[in-house]
């Protein structure tokens, strides 16, 4: 039966979505900002891996740590300081500004590549391994494993490390956190930088499996929104579970209905969650709805 293969494919895609959504969720949970340009950092990671492979012959699993993550982190911190921070309480303007970033990055990529599609060649590009009689693509398997480990690590970090606790404090009560001596602005900068870095990291990891185009950002950002809503705002574990669910549902609907209707699937999931249980699986009531 094809079903196991479809489900596994869904899990793999779900792992990617989960990784992308974790960063989005962190930013929303701590800073209470929605970064519409989030998907563009995934694209950035993919291009970074491509460039690193082309110029320095580095495989994506190395270049992602060495180059992509640090550069994107710095970029994220700068964006937070100059674009997000001034607009902290102005939700409408945040939408405009982050959309502006989205359009800017998309079109910088378009101008730089003249619309060409680029692919990273890697030793694991077309290799697969056999597990339980199924042939699994190594790249995607790695991403899924990384997503699970990473999410677990972040959850642990938030719960136990002093910085994680500080972040949770800031997300719950900005004013009190400041009084307790936590540098809120610095926390925001770090969280935003981290979220963009995670997104870029995910992009670098999946670069062997996907060709990168200037508009690929939205195709990760949109499902990431659905994942964040499904898993529950501010819940990192929810992002993992939500991501896997979205991935599997997408794969199943692609198999039984039509793969071209991916976006419709995301929207239906999004709407369904909002109608049935806006808080999502692990989120808190009142974050998303008005009353």
């Amino acid at each position, binding site marked *: 039966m094809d079903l196991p293969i479809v489900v596994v494919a869904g899990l793999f895609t779900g792992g990617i979505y989960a990784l992308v959504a974790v960063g989005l969720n962190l930013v929303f949970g701590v800073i209470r900002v*929605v970064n519409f340009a989030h998907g563009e950092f995934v694209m950035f990671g993919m291009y970074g891996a491509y460039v690193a492979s082309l110029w320095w012959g580095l495989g994506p699993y190395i270049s992602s740590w060495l180059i992509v993550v640090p550069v994107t982190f710095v970029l994220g911190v700068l964006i937070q300081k100059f674009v997000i921070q001034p607009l902290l309480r102005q939700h409408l303007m*945040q939408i405009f500004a982050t959309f*502006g970033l*989205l*359009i800017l990055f998309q079109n910088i990529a378009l101008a730089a590549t003249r619309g060409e599609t680029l692919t990273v060649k890697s030793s694991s590009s077309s290799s697969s391994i056999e597990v339980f009689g199924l042939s699994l693509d190594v790249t995607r398997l790695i991403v899924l494993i990384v997503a699970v480990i990473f999410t677990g690590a972040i959850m642990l970090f938030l719960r136990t490390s002093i910085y994680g606790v500080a972040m949770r404090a800031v997300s719950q009560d900005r004013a009190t956190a400041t009084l307790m001596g936590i540098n809120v602005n610095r926390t925001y900068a770090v969280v935003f930088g981290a979220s963009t870095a995670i997104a870029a990291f995910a992009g670098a990891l999946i670069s062997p499996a996907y060709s990168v185009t200037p508009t690929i950002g939205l195709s990760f950002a949109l499902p990431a929104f659905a994942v964040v809503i499904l898993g529950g705002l501010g819940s990192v574990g929810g992002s993992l579970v939500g991501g896997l669910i979205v991935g599997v549902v997408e794969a199943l609907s692609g198999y039984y209905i039509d793969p071209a209707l991916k976006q419709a699937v995301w929207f239906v999931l999004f709407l369904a969650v*909002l109608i049935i249980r*806006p808080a999502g699986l692990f989120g808190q009531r009142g974050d998303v709805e*008005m009353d």
Partner: protein
Amino acid sequence: MTKPEQVQAGEERTCASAKSGLSLKKLKPSHASMVSARTAWASYVGALVALAVVLVLLKGDEYFLGLAAVGILFAALACAWNIIGGFGGQFSLGHAVFFGVGAYSVCLLRVNHGWSPWLALVVGAVLSAIVALLLAWPLFRLSGVFFAIGTMVLAEVAFALSIYFEWTGGAAGVTIPFAMRTINDTFTWGVIFLGFLAACLAVSILVVRGRLGYYLVAVKENHEAASAAGASPLAVKTIGLVISAVLTAIGGGLFIMYLGFLDPPSVFSLVDVGVFIPLLALVGGIGTIVGPVLGGLLLQPAQAYFRGEFADLPPGTSQAFIGVLLIVVALYFQDGIWGKVKNFMRKKRDRRD
């Protein structure tokens, strides 16, 4: 601040509406809706006449006439968006859906069934009203950003569906054969668009000055106070959305009649329609009557002109500029052109006292 004699005059006055208009003027209206009816409609007619003059002057220069005509159309679309996005504060990134419904209705009914485009416009308007009604309940439960996200996802879905289905023409879109196009003259289209702008502006003015406008602001700024005052937040937002959707759909239909051709990107594109129309409202002055019109008239032709002039630059340069503009305006120019003008005039008034 008001002076004692003016207060006396206000209190003694009876309830004649013309007089209340005058006494309100002395009470220093800070809100556009509080100018007297005479002033509002006089300015309205004046603006339309001025634009008509511009069109006449440009007659003969096809290129600039075309820029002006489309600029007027987008000014009207920005005005329509502003009803729910500006007055109502519900930031819709999904107006491309209504635009598309109008455009596709006209195109498909005309080409496949030979309908009169004007009749098809009505169909498009009705359909978009239905879509707006259906979407209102799930979407309006969401606060600010999530409403925006929801509408954005909706637009992306519409995009995907229009490519997927064959009867929408798929990715190639639909072309209206030349033989079927009744009006081909740019000047005439300019006049039609001006008529459409007149309609959108009139609706805007009526909304702002009437109960719906006040309720929209009340619901936007304070849900509980609005419901305590007798306004149903859901009903108010829904009506605002339906009005905005219907106008936008008509605009979409008219645009496609002008172009003679549509494909999914030209209608559902986030950059060219979905975010662009709100940007026009923002630049001109969100939440004001004049602002969106100003933004549309200035920015749309400017953007088209630059795209044409600098066509040899790498692809995406002009759009990248739009991105930068969005960021800069959101950070430093939030009130928009008309917003800044109003602030300036208010400061002058307050200083004069």
